[in-house]
């Protein structure tokens, strides 16, 4: 059998906490991390957000970094990457590749100083500098790259990671993304009038927008046989990926969800699966009227009358923008490994335009073999991946 691309490590930081264990426990408890703003210096306290529950100082202390100017994106990224490398026992390894997704990189620092430059002597602002700040906390990497497709950035990093392994370029690629909250993002999304003043309610008839979140997550992708040879624990398989462009509008999704449909069907084809093999879909499900209707239309086109259980975990974390693709991929692995379906606690009223998500206070238990995870970005950059149990 052909060598598969397996996952041997994961690290995650979100509003649900630091680390996979804390995130999994909060999902199982049905406890959202979206609340009134604490750390972002914004006047817009009316918009609840999914902030990582640690101040900048606490993050620095936890990472034993000296006082100085750091982007929160950098700190969140290091925390998640460290966990992933520790789990896969690669912290002492050199010659690894990393692909990271981000959109505003070090914007939280830039906007603080604007129009006076920050004078640390380090480049912090641009996406590539942001990735390399995260990477150079470690001594592991001799290849780095940054994908930037708005809210599908981290998922496109995973897709490129799989390609690097399958084309024979690399045996191990760490991929994911990081993004911190910024005034730039909050006021940008506010300008688009798509922020909800309540907790977001994806696929609900009363949904009226998204909550912004922040966080980071990385997955260690490995070629199967060398991973087995070095005795790595295999957490799952990245069995299929898809990337399609909606080619409709810079910020709105098409009515029939063409880009999303293409991404999902490509992922199924690459995994060699049919739609009935999928036991759960972690939807992009932002909570905006447009996204959820469009994604539902695409899901109905892909799955016909048999749409599997679907939920959006954005009511737990907020929309973690560039990082959402890898954060939610970690959630899918946690759901698969612990045998549960993440439930949407905020859901009340079904909408005929939308699929009806898994809801209620308890996460239904069950065996998941193949799960699909979606991430869509502005510009119609739609991506989808399938994660499978390692068997």
């Amino acid at each position, binding site marked *: 059998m052909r060598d598969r691309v397996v996952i041997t490590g994961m690290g995650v930081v979100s509003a649900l906490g630091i680390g996979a264990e804390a995130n999994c426990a909060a999902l199982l408890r049905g406890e959202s991390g979206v609340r009134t703003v604490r750390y972002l210096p914004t006047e817009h306290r009316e918009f609840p957000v999914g902030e990582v529950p640690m101040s900048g100082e606490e993050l620095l202390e936890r990472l034993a970094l000296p006082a100085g100017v750091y982007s929160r994106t950098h700190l969140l990224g290091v925390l998640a990457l460290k966990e992933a490398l520790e789990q896969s026992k690669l912290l002492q390894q050199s010659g690894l590749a990393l692909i990271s997704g981000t959109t505003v990189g070090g914007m939280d620092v830039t906007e603080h100083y604007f*129009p006076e430059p920050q004078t640390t002597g380090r480049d912090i602002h641009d*996406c590539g500098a942001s990735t390399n700040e995260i990477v150079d906390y470690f001594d592991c990497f001799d290849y*780095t790259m940054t*994908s930037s497709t708005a809210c599908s950035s981290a998922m496109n990093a995973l897709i490129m990671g799989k390609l690097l392994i399958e084309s024979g370029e690399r045996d191990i690629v760490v991929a994911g993304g990081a993004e911190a909250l910024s005034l730039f993002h909050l006021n940008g999304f506010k300008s688009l009038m798509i922020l909800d003043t309540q907790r977001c309610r994806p696929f609900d008839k009363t949904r009226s927008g998204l909550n912004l979140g922040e966080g980071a997550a990385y997955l260690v992708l490995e070629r199967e046989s060398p991973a087995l040879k070095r005795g790595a624990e295999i957490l799952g398989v990245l069995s299929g990926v898809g990337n399609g462009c909606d*080619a409709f509008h810079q910020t709105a999704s098409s009515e029939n969800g063409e880009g999303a449909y293409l991404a999902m069907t490509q992922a199924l084809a690459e995994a060699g699966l049919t739609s009935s093999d999928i036991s759960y879909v972690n939807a992009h499900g932002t909570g905006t009227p447009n996204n959820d209707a469009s994604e539902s239309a695409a899901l109905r086109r892909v799955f016909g009358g048999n749409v599997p259980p679907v939920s959006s975990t954005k009511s737990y974390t907020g929309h973690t923008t560039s990082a959402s693709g890898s954060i939610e991929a970690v959630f899918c692995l946690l759901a698969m490994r612990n045998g549960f379906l993440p439930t949407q606690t905020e859901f009340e009223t079904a909408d005929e335009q939308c699929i009806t998500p898994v809801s209620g206070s308890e996460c239904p238990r069950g065996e998941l073999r193949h799960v699909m995870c979606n991430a869509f970005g502005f510009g119609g950059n739609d991506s989808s991946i399938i994660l499978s149990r390692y068997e």
Partner: protein
Amino acid sequence: MTAIVKDVPAEEYNRYLPPMKARRMGKLQKRALVTALKAMEISGTDQPDAILNGTAMGCMEHSVQLLKGLEQEGEAVNMPTAFMQSTHNTVASLIAIHTCNHGYNNTYAHRTISFECALQDAWLQLRTGRLRTALVSANDEITEFQHQHPHFFGQMEYADRSEAWMLSVEPGDHPLYELENVRIIHQKGAEDRAEIIKKPL
């Protein structure tokens, strides 16, 4: 490679883009789109299997606009268009929207080797049979604000440019180069390096 196009001059824009449409676009978006369209025309590939873009800093005109808005108006700022056009993937999406292209679409923003990252993605997909054709572009702009404050966003030196390459697994009538390899190297404490190895045909 079946076409390489650099910085199409403004006088030629009319050939590719109706003025009505062009008026609503930023300077970089216009130049990027026209450069891509010309590469499609020269190569005779109007629907490539993939559109990829590399950009060191993204759409700076609109990013600076929103940053200035935040500085001057505080959080009363309301700039949906600037925000919408500020994301790095605006250019690759714009090319896809304009040409109704639903294929693979990706954007890399990795400092001075952003184009090489996009090129490596396309090249690996062409080599492994996932794609038959790919449009790979490089697009960056340096705004008036950056000319006045040269190191505000960092020390990185990058060019104000639009460039588009069409890659194909079939040489066609006028092949220019054969792409042999794209290498990317990261070394802690140094600027990332990349190498494009190509052979003239």
